[in-house]
Each structure stands twice: as C-alpha cells, then as structure tokens.
C-alpha cells in the first residue's frame, strides 16, 4: 500500500481525528473511506459500533461452544453449491 503526504488545516485535522477517535478508526482509514465515497459508489455502512463488538464476540463464542459437531458439507461446499444453483 502506497503512502501519500497531504496538507490539511490544523482545525480540520482536529475534526478528522475527533471523528476517527469516536469511531475507533485510524486517521488513514477514515480519509481512505471518505475518498472512496467521493470517487463514486454508495457510501459504505459501518456495522456495529465498537461498544457492541465485544458483546458480539462473546455471543459468537458462546454459540460456538454450544455448537455440536455434525456430518455434512463444509461451509465452502455449501456456499459453492448454492451459488451455482442461483448463478
């Protein structure tokens, strides 16, 4: 990944950093996403605020602990078969 140097007014950079801190993202990631949105396509939706992420992780781990082994297709095989059916 290439690195670029850009100039931003100090007060604007402070705003960028405040948003990045609030969303638990790096400055680079935030600027990259803003540029992508500017250059076309719908703005992506960031699911799950970070405060919910630990709860989500705990829930997934709990569901996994309770899951039972079973015979059958792997996740990749199931997905490939489904996609081939639907094209």
């Amino acid at each position, binding site marked *: *990944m290439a690195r670029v140097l850009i100039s931003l007014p100090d007060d604007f950079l402070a705003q960028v950093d405040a948003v990045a801190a609030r969303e*638990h*993202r*790096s400055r680079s*990631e935030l600027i990259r*996403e803003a540029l*992508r949105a500017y250059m*076309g*396509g*719908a703005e*992506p*939706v*960031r*699911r*799950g*605020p*970070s405060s*919910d*992420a*630990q*709860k*989500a*992780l705990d*829930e*997934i781990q709990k*569901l*996994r602990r*309770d*899951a*039972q*082994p*079973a015979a*059958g*297709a*792997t*996740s*990749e095989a*199931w*997905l*490939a078969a*489904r*996609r*081939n059916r*639907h*094209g």
Partner: protein
Amino acid sequence: MAEYVLDPAVAMKWFLPTGQESYVAESRGLLDRIARGADTAHVPGVFFYEFGAWLHAEGGRFGIDPERAFEAVRALPLVEHALDRELAAAGHLAARRHALDFYTAVYIALSERLVCPFLTGDDALAAKLAGQTRVQKLAGAR
C-alpha cells in the same frame, strides 16, 4: 492493520466446533481482530443474505440459533457496501473475466474497487483466481 473483503464462508466457520472443517482456528483469529478493530473487513450487502441463508439451511445441523448468530455478526464492525450500479457493473465484468457466478464476482469486484484482497478459505476458488486478482487464502492471513 489488515484490510480485506471477507468471504461469508469464513464467517460461517466462526460458529463451528473445533475440527469441524479446515481453517476454523484461523477464522477465529480473524474474528478476534475484526472485533477489536485491528482489521477492517469489507462485505457487499449480499454477504448478509448468504450468511442468513446458511444459518437457516445448516445452523440446525450444529444446533446454532439462526437469529442470535445473525444479530451477533450484524453487530460486528463490518463495513457493508451496497450493490450500487457501479459495483453491479464491476460484478458483471468480473463474472465474465474470471468465469464466476455473480455472487462470487461481486466479492471480487469489491476487492478490486477497494484495492485489498478477497480473503477466503476456499482453496479451489483461491487456486482458480491466483494470479488474476487479489485473492488471499485464509491460511496465509495474519
């Protein structure tokens, strides 16, 4: 920080018992990094349809509650990209160029748009796309 487009089959592995299939352990490491915000995982909107379809078709086999599993994945900090006109057009192109079904092609098109790898545990798909596009096998992920 790693950034990639996530194959829904990887998310399915998050719920599977140890040893159920290949790359389950690797998928858990990935989940942990995504939840901590150490990695950025991008998904097209169709990711949630495919994941939900798997939960309803296969979740019962493992005793997984589809609603709870779906909501947990929705609460992760995944970056969801709508299938807008641009992404759909790129998906059609990728489907023709790589001889893929349209679902898979949309994931590849998104990875090409974002200039980041498509991360998958599907060895056959990775082999098919090797050298043609930015595909990364789960085993090689950090």
